[in-house]
């Protein structure tokens, strides 16, 4: 019986197949000839996908000044930032030149893994910034990121709704709760808060309105030094306060995420947003909601306000960048008052650490006034307490969610965080 294909036909088939595959392999176009002038392109990335238009406007000023450097802004969605960026850096990709980083443990980690370069000597204008701030963005004996922005935490409120019910901005917690009760009885959505994006509770909430309850900066320092434990009654009290707020959350809060919270406030469907930081200013202005801001109410009248003003975005230089010189030029420009003014004008709500006199928009200025008259603190778990897993950040986030969902009592929540931290943190 003859075969399906004779040997000759098989040979022909093979030949054709190989020819086609080889043709495809070599068909990938040849590289274009390099241009005559030294045009370099640097790619900046961060988690601020909301700022694309603003950052491009800022970078346009830089590109006018330095016409042979093109700056592209390629941000990554904030929930995927860590994963995507690390994957790129671990594979030694040169895709990103300037990368957005958080201070403290984050930059220390990145430095340890060899992702970023020391900037001392490379970026001359670093000396413009206060040393105390530079220390927050240092690791291994050198500054590893240019501090770009800090943000303040506070509470946003809808001015129209407040006016409708004759409500005044509260100064004490009791006043705040009475406002909440009034609104709830009127059938208004009081607080745009959900339990899905847990950072809004543990990082944007607890150290925000909670700082006044657990003792703010002094307590944070004591916790970092290991002098007090997380089972301290002040932390338990703060969890209890969180639990008492749940009744004012928008119904269905169990499935509401951060974007939904922002949308609720932007469309005027909720009276207040308590996890909001000053980074929301630009978005709220663009949405046209008539909003105001007040610092978290103090426990008792006369208390000194503990305001969470956290060091946020910094720019580092990737070790795998192929355009170090151009990137360093960019970072040098970032460390100038000119950049600071541009940044604060285009992205209101982010405050530069650069000393100088700046003109800000009214909302941003009012926040800055509060900043200047309060005791400033950072996010509770940002420094030292999140260096190893289980990180303080994750523990606090999870504990807050469980309190909100009713799975933990305040005491259990504090225990949960304490026992997680105790597995690696040197408490005394």
């Amino acid at each position, binding site marked *: 019986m003859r075969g399906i294909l004779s040997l000759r036909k098989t040979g022909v088939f093979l030949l054709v197949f190989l020819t086609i595959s080889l043709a495809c392999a070599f068909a990938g176009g040849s590289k274009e000839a390099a241009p005559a002038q030294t045009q370099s392109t640097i790619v900046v990335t961060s988690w601020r996908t909301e700022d694309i238009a603003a950052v491009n406007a800022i970078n346009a000023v830089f590109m006018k000044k330095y016409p042979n450097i093109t700056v592209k802004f390629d941000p990554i969605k904030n929930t995927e930032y860590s994963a995507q960026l690390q994957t790129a850096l671990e594979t030694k990709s040169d895709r990103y030149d300037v990368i957005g980083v958080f201070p403290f443990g984050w930059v220390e980690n990145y430095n340890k893994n060899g992702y970023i370069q020391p900037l001392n000597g490379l970026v001359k204008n670093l000396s413009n910034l206060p040393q105390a701030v530079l220390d927050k963005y240092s690791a291994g004996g050198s500054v590893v990121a240019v501090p770009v922005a800090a943000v303040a935490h506070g509470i946003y409120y809808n001015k129209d709704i407040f006016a409708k019910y004759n409500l005044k901005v509260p100064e004490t917690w009791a006043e705040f709760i009475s406002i909440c009760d009034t609104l709830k009885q009127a059938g208004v959505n009081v607080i745009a808060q959900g339990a899905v994006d847990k950072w809004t509770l543990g990082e944007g909430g607890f150290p925000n309105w909670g700082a006044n309850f657990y003792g703010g900066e002094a307590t944070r320092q004591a916790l970092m030094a290991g002098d007090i434990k997380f089972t301290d009654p002040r932390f338990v009290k703060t969890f209890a306060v969180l639990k008492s707020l749940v009744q004012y959350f928008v119904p269905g809060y169990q499935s509401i995420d951060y974007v939904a919270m922002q949308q609720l406030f932007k469309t005027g*469907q909720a009276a207040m947003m308590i996890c909001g930081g000053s980074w929301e200013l630009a978005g709220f202005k663009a949405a046209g909601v008539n909003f105001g801001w007040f610092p978290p109410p103090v426990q008792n009248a006369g208390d000194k306000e503990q305001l969470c003003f956290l060091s946020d975005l910094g720019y580092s230089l990737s070790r795998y960048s192929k355009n170090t010189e151009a990137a360093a030029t960019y970072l040098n420009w970032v460390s100038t008052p000119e950049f600071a003014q541009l940044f604060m004008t285009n992205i209101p709500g982010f405050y530069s650490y650069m000393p100088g006199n700046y003109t800000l928009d009214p909302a941003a200025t009012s926040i800055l006034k509060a900043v200047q008259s309060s005791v400033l603190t950072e996010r509770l778990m940002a420094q030292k307490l999140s260096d190893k897993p289980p990180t303080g950040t994750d523990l606090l986030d999870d504990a807050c969610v469980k309190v909100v969902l009713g799975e933990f009592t305040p005491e259990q929540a504090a225990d949960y965080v304490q026992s997680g931290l105790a597995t690696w943190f040197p408490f005394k």
Partner: protein
Amino acid sequence: MQRGQRALRGNLHVIILFLAPTLLFYTAFLILPVFDSLRLSLYSGKLLRIDRFVGLANFHRLFFVPPFNTAFFNAFRNTLELFVILAAIQNTIPLVFAVIISRVRFASFFRVVFFIPSLVPLIVVGFLFKMILNPVWGVLDKALRFIHLGLLVRPWLGDAHLAIPVIALIGGWVYFGLPFVLFLAGINSIDHEMIEAARIDGAGEIAVTRRIIIPLLLPVFGIVTTLALIGNITQFDLIYSAANAWGDPAYRTDVFGTLFYRSMFGANNTGITSDLGLAAALASVMFVIVLVGEILVLRFTRRRGAS
């Protein structure tokens, strides 16, 4: 058959020629990585960088050391729950529809229509349903209130008891087509004389379905369950788009897929880097679970069915 054997021998080189590329591809990209994964689980490292040999330490951490073991067993429970519900849905509803459609005309029209949802990418489906189920703007809650069933309104994806079943229902909607087509094919391949004989003996529709169709479809149940098993133990897209990568709320929708994603690529904004060994250990455990599950499925569905 003599003719067949001779045909095979004469064409052996052609057969090998046609099989070789696919076999090579399959081995290189599917078989080898499985074993390499097992190898990697004995090391520690970050992303693609291996640090050092740690033996069974990763497995020890995965099973015995909190918070790793709590995360693991939580994910195990959620994954199992998702699988059980999905397998139950996929083995019943498509079957009912198949039995009905097999008696009706225009069966091929229904085949196409019911198959279309499974062609929509899972990410898109999850996202769409997330919008539909949104407590503030979602269509579902508005519709329920409109027909005066407002009492049924719940935070669907946020409720600890409802989140996984709801996601399973979404999965059931997507994965309806293939089981339906398989069941329909299975029913159509049953010898009609048997059914005629049963009808003559006085069996009603239900009895025919119960006593003849279902037992003969046992292999199809096996296939559907196998597909559900493989698909769901490693399920990621659906959870990621309907909930998020941390299994919110409070890890209630955390499954093996999302746990693996976090272990391998690092988690949110804490700069915590990946743990290659732990992720590989988890992947190895997932592989074993699917293997054991599949063996059980095969044994159970071959026992009585006529092949």
